[in-house]
């Protein structure tokens, strides 16, 4: 019956699809943004990170003395340990503009923590004086604006050979790298650990983290335990599966720190709840209106001897079928929007299979509620009304 009423069906499918779209898309953007929070763990690859014991998450560097490095290296099971500096600094561009950057200082001997992929230049050039490597997005963001012959202003991305200043010290670009963008937003500027210290104008404590590799036969978790026992520092594993409840994952700790300490989950949760309630309102109202318009036919079918079980099954089948189609349309649109977003790189979009399953369950829930509303109405209609004109 519902599928013969094109207008009602279209309205119902629009409601369900919009709801599924909003729930799937907003949840995917949420997890995309949240995945950016632990970007340092993804970009700076190491099996074990060691930090000050008060550190709660990857963006929260509490600098240590360089001597801590020696203590960690002396722990049994450590193959090597390298220093890592991270800090937020102001970069002064050639046009006088200032940009906030995330400076990453890596060990000059091992290049532990260096970006995995360079699109221009080579990592060894980082050993040259006053050199840095900038990420692709940062190169674009820090690029200079040029007025064309038509008066149109375009941004020319930074490239190897370009220079800028950090605390009045020259930084010459020798490479452009590909790394994942971060929640904190600033461009990544890679340099050596010692040079990073000079850019920070001689701060006494500059060791943000230590990157550690276990010897063969020792798991990261075992090594973390040993480091903590022997040094009193905090040691983290670097697995990024946030669903895995291992208590040493720096990525997971970062994810949940942002979950608890920011309004992001509430903000996106509100959007998802809105999708759910709008879906219930639209599809419930449309389904109810469909039942109301067809009430005399339901009464006639009831008079003909259809049990409530048969009528309920009729309504359920129609509501659930509409729900499945609506979910397909909504999830498909969310996926399409996500693809465009991924291509543009902004905002982030991560659609886990769990998101699709949850959206399906919620869309089915909306259909279920709609069907129940209709069934209650039909159950109350008296079959004898068919004889009342």
């Amino acid at each position, binding site marked *: *019956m*519902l*599928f*013969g*009423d094109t207008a009602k069906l279209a309205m119902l499918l629009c409601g369900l699809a919009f709801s599924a779209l909003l729930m799937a898309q907003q949840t995917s953007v949420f997890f995309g943004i949240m995945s950016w929070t632990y970007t340092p763990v993804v970009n700076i690859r190491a099996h074990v990170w060691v930090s000050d014991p008060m550190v709660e998450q990857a963006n929260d560097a509490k600098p240590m003395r360089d001597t801590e490095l020696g203590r960690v290296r002396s722990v049994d099971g450590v193959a090597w340990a390298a220093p890592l500096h991270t800090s937020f600094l102001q970069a002064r561009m050639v046009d006088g503009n200032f940009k906030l950057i995330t400076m990453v200082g890596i060990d000059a001997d091992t290049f532990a923590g260096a970006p995995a992929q360079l699109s221009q230049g080579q990592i060894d050039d980082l050993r040259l004086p006053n050199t840095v490597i900038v990420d692709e997005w940062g190169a674009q963001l820090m690029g200079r604006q040029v007025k064309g012959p038509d008066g149109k202003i375009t941004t020319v991305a930074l490239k190897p050979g370009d220079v800028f200043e950090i605390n009045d010290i020259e930084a010459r670009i020798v490479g452009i790298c590909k790394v994942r963008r971060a929640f904190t937003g600033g461009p990544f500027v890679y340099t050596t650990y010692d040079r990073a210290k000079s850019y920070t104008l001689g701060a006494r404590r500059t060791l943000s983290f230590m990157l550690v590799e276990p010897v063969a036969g020792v798991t990261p978790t075992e090594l973390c335990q040993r480091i903590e026992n022997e040094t009193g520092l905090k040691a983290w594993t670097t697995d990024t599966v946030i669903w895995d409840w291992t208590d040493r994952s720096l990525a997971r700790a970062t994810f949940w720190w942002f979950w608890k300490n920011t309004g992001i989950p509430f903000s996106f949760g509100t959007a998802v709840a809105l999708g759910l309630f709008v879906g219930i309102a639209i599809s419930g109202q449309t389904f109810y209106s469909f039942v109301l318009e*067809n009430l*005399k*036919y339901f009464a*006639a*079918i*009831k*008079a*003909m*001897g*259809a*049990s409530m079980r*048969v009528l309920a099954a009729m309504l359920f089948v129609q509501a659930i079928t509409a729900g499945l189609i609506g979910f397909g349309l909504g999830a498909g649109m969310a996926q399409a929007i996500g693809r465009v977003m991924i291509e543009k790189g902004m905002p982030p979009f991560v659609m886990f299979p769990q998101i699709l399953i949850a959206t399906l369950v919620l869309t089915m829930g909306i259909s279920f509620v709609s069907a129940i509303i209709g069934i209650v109405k039909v159950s109350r209609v*008296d*079959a*004898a009304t*068919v*004889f*009342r*004109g």
Partner: protein
Amino acid sequence: MTQTIAVAARQVDISFGSEEAKVIALNHTNFSAHTGELIMLVGPSGCGKTTLLSVIAGTLTPQSGEIEVFGQRLDGLSQEELTTFRRKNLGFVFQSFNLIPTLSVVENVMIPLLIQGASHAVAKKKATEILEKVGLKGREEGKPNALSGGQQQRVAIARALVHEPPLLICDEPTSALDKDTGAQIMEMIRELSRAPNRCVVVVTHDFRIFKYADRIAEMEDGKIKRVVDDPRTLDPTYL
């Protein structure tokens, strides 16, 4: 032909509302209809025709009295038992056809069979056959709204009979039809009533179709005032 009692109502009482607002719809009403018979229930508005029809159809339970349809006592049956009874024994022709506009003609006719649990294929075959019998061959896949009033009522009759019920209940079957079409429909209904094990009860205000009845039961104030064979003997003011 031997006629047996198809429908019997004995001392049936039904009232609606309470206290001062109480309306007595049926007042110790007695009524009977036989197999092979077309009986009409007539009378002024509010006399209790529709209430009696609802009681006979098992969609309304009397407060007292007995209702027996083809030997089955309906008073005292549960709603579930009444539903099962209607499914097997009753066919309905409604005043406004009640054909579902979003379903095709054949799908409308299939409904009683599908309710009984018949497969889609069997239901479609039987529905197609009966549509041919009522003269609607070739219109099976169209929507009811594309048919004339007479054709829609034929579809309704096909739907009422597709599962071969012994009791056919018709509520004002000609009120939405013009004179000629109404006559055609009544010819068809009268022919159907001639089946040896079938009884047709028609509620109507349309005096032009009284001639098709075997008997006419005239109601007044919730009672059967009289039952006549000849419509000319009915109250002239009413006619």
